[in-house]
């Protein structure tokens, strides 16, 4: 038996769309309200109530589907997915079964930083809309196994994005999720907050093995309950190894065991078998007779496409091709999200220097944001102020050696460049004063002069330190040049 196997991964991502109200009623979707305060007869399935589709939710779904390169059929409908569960008050979820609102898309992923995999295109089988269930809260603390239901979330619009089983490693899975999240944030359809459940991911994993008897696939396992991208990576790695172990023990192939659902336990770092409500279930899907089909014309789709704005992939290639940034830098900037990229562009266009701006943003701005645990929106130095700083440095108004001090002060005290220059006491040292200082120091350091004359130019270095003590505004580069010129004339 050979040791080589391929991990085959497909991801199902549930994205909560950023609407103010639910998918089929007007209740708020705000997270964190008191339980069961954001409900109405419709979303709790009160007898006699009827759903009416939220246009905005459909538009956001359409926007997403177009952004992930899906085809948009002219006709889509709603289906009921039926199962009994206490957090599903209607006894069915309104979803889309055989005619989803979009299909056959893709997302491109790459790993330019670490080179663990080649750039590739991940197929997207479909993306469809559905309403979310409520939340079951099981309180076993008091020994009574109390169960409570919060229906605030019931009816929140979810877009389920199902990938093809095109992913081959946990790194690819993570890259796919990060790229997808970035895209969703760029087009503004979701806040993608995993802690609040705005972005949820399940993974379908199995192995393809090369054996003496040809290719073999292991049974597919669905992993649930992964609450971070890191958890997805760990769970997939764990599951691949586990499946390989099980394969070695049992030799069980796909089709020889039912599809299993396992839950990721972050604390123990294991996937555990889940008693799933979906186990061997028949959802008895059928078209929801309370809703009418949704039609979309090519013109409407074109309108959505035109209004998308620039997507991450295109931003990256524009930064490298048009503005000369390295693919690595372009990636760093784009991956920070739309707001930071906008900041970058504003700065770069104002000072007209993309490379210097890139250095400032990737090296200094990002560092401060991380230190201060803040976002670019709340950052003390505005894009225009950063542009002024870069321009002042280029003009020589601010010595290069002092620009970082000025930046730190601008960050700390929320002041503009001019004020920082002023407070730091930075002045232009005029040429005659610099010559005088050179002459003074050369006169008092004959040993250094001798060293230089003997060919050790680097000896000037210790004079620079002395010069900066006497006048912190001295431009060390110019000072060094002058010293060498004067020594040469001696």
């Amino acid at each position, binding site marked *: 038996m050979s040791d080589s196997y391929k991990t085959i991964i497909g991801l199902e991502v549930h994205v909560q769309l950023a609407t103010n109200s639910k998918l089929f009623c007007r209740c708020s979707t705000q997270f964190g309200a008191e339980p069961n305060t954001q409900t109405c*007869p419709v979303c*709790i*399935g*009160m*007898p*006699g*109530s*009827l*759903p*009416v*589709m939220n246009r905005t939710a459909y538009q956001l779904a359409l926007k997403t589907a177009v952004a992930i390169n899906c085809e948009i059929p002219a006709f889509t409908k709603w289906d*009921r997915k*039926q199962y*009994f*569960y*206490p*957090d599903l*008050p*209607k*006894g*069915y979820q309104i979803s889309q079964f055989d005619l989803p609102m979009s299909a056959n898309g893709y997302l491109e992923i790459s790993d330019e930083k670490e080179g663990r995999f080649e750039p590739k295109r991940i197929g997207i089988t479909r993306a469809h809309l559905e309403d979310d269930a409520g939340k*079951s809260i*099981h309180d076993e603390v008091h020994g009574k*196994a*109390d*169960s409570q*239901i919060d229906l605030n979330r019931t009816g929140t619009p979810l877009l389920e994005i199902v990938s093809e089983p095109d992913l081959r490693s946990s790194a690819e899975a993570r890259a796919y999720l990060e790229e997808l999240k970035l895209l969703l944030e760029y087009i503004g359809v979701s806040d993608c907050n995993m802690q609040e459940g705005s972005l949820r991911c399940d993974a379908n994993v199995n192995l393809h093995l090369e054996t003496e008897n040809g290719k073999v696939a292991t049974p597919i396992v669905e992993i649930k309950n992964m609450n971070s991208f890191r958890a997805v990576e760990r769970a997939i790695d764990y599951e691949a190894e586990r499946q390989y172990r099980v394969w070695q023990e049992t030799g069980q192939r796909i089709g020889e065991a039912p599809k299993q659902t396992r839950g990721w336990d972050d604390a123990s770092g294991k996937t555990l078998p889940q*008693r799933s409500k979906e186990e061997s279930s*028949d959802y*008895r*899907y*059928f078209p929801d*007779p*309370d*809703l*009418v089909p949704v039609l979309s014309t090519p013109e409407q789709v074109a309108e959505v496409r035109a209004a998308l704005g620039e997507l991450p992939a295109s931003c990256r290639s524009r930064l490298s091709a048009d503005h000369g940034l390295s693919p690595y830098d372009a990636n760093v900037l784009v991956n920070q999200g739309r707001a930071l990229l906008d900041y970058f562009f504003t700065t770069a266009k104002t000072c007209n220097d993309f490379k210097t701006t890139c250095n400032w943003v990737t090296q200094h701005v990002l560092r401060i944001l991380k230190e201060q645990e803040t976002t670019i929106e709340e950052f003390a130095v505005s894009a225009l102020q950063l542009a002024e700083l870069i321009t002042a440095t280029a003009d020589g108004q601010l010595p290069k050696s002092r620009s970082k001090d000025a930046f730190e002060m601008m960050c700390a005290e929320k002041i503009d460049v001019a004020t920082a220059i002023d407070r730091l006491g930075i002045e232009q040292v005029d040429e005659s004063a610099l010559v005088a200082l050179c002459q003074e120091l050369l006169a008092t350091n004959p040993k250094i002069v001798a060293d230089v004359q003997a060919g050790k130019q680097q000896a000037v270095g210790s004079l620079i330190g002395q010069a900066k003590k006497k006048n912190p505004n001295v431009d060390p580069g110019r000072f060094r040049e002058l010293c060498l010129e004067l020594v040469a004339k001696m």
Partner: protein
Amino acid sequence: MSLTEQSATELLQLLNQGEISSVELTQSYLDQIEAKDSQIGAFLRIDAKAALARAADIDTRRQSGKPLGKLAGLPVAVKDVLCDTETKTTCASRMLENFRPPYDSTVVAKLKAADAVLIGRTNMDEFAMGGSTENSAFQITRNPWDLERAPGGSSGGAAACVAGGMAPLSIGTDTGGSIRQPAGLCGVVGLKPTYGRVSRYGLVAFASSLDQVGPLANTTEDAALLLETIAGHDPLDSTSLDVPVPEYTATINRPLEGLRIGVVREHFATGLDPEVESAVRDAIKVYESLGATVKEISLPHSKYAVATYYVIAPSEASSNLARYDGVHFGHRHSQLSVPDPTSNSLVEMYRCSRSEGFGPEVKRRIMLGAYALSAGYYDAYYLKALKVRRLIRQDFDTAFEQVDLIASPVTAEPAFKIGQLADDPLSMYLVDLYTVSANLAGLPGVSLPCGFSSSGLPIGLQLQAKPLAEETLLRGAHMYQKATDWQSRKLDQLK
């Protein structure tokens, strides 16, 4: 003539002229209910005090010259399946025995806005499933013409209260004939509107793609009055049609010129009671005498209508009734507290609650529907039924290119005896033979009296029209009503 023998249209005139007060009128009906309903059992609940208070309020407003709604002061009975914040909505089921909705259905809201006096809630087959009102979990309703006989169903209470002079107007619902069939068996006028004409918001669903709310009344004018009050587009119902509602009462007196009546070959096959057949054929002759041309047409797929209906309606019902699980809605088995959803006790609670809460016919239909929708059977049953449904609709589309109205029996026989079909669900389903097609095709249909059997039971005539042609339907029905005297003979016989 006593007040309760007059038509709603006449009563409204008396109210508007100040001849009578709404309190007086409401009291007359309450008296009738008091006198008769212990025998008939049309009403599940009456709130006399609330009705009289509302009537008094309307009287006060009328006296002070304030603007009033279309039905100002007229009592209206409502089938116990439409949500109303002021009373329970039980659907004649143990499951919803204590359900008090926190919102008004659109139809109830419209009735309230029209200043109707909602006089009581009428009995029905549980969740509107049945054709005799015997499936009510609470009581039997008797046919006012013969207390040994059923009033039909599922809107049996709605038809019986009008026939029994206990309400001038009443609201029913029709999923497969549930307005037209009891109207026919009780000798009143009952109209099922085009699917989407009247909002279903707040109507507790039986089969969503078939359910429609409609009026039951003594006369065609009264039915027109009630229909124009409750019809219209509702943004809360996605299947509601966004088209203007004609003022039916304004045109109902205008006879239809060049009327073409269609008679369906397949309707006069075996199983049709000879007395019913001759009454319907006589009615068609009346139309001829009024200048209409009669054309024999064919609805080749109508023979599949009952089978198609009994796949689609239970399928939707099995889903619509899933919410009655004892967790959020409906009866919960008393021995079990809220169980841990991860344990088997949850399934046990569902099982016990649903077993206790639903009656046998409801369970039968849930089982039928769940079966038809399950994997491996969906294509053979549900999907097939949808295809036949389309063919049935196409039959009608073709027919209505040649005729304006289709005339037919409402039922094959006059009112059957209570208990006669109770143990034979299949025969009970076949009672829907003439009525289910309109629901499958989404057409409007009306049932109106067209004679009596030798034993003195009313016989109904059904007219169907193309979608949204309620105006044609009512004008056509009114022509017949004006040309015949079943209305006055009905009153004499019922005395």
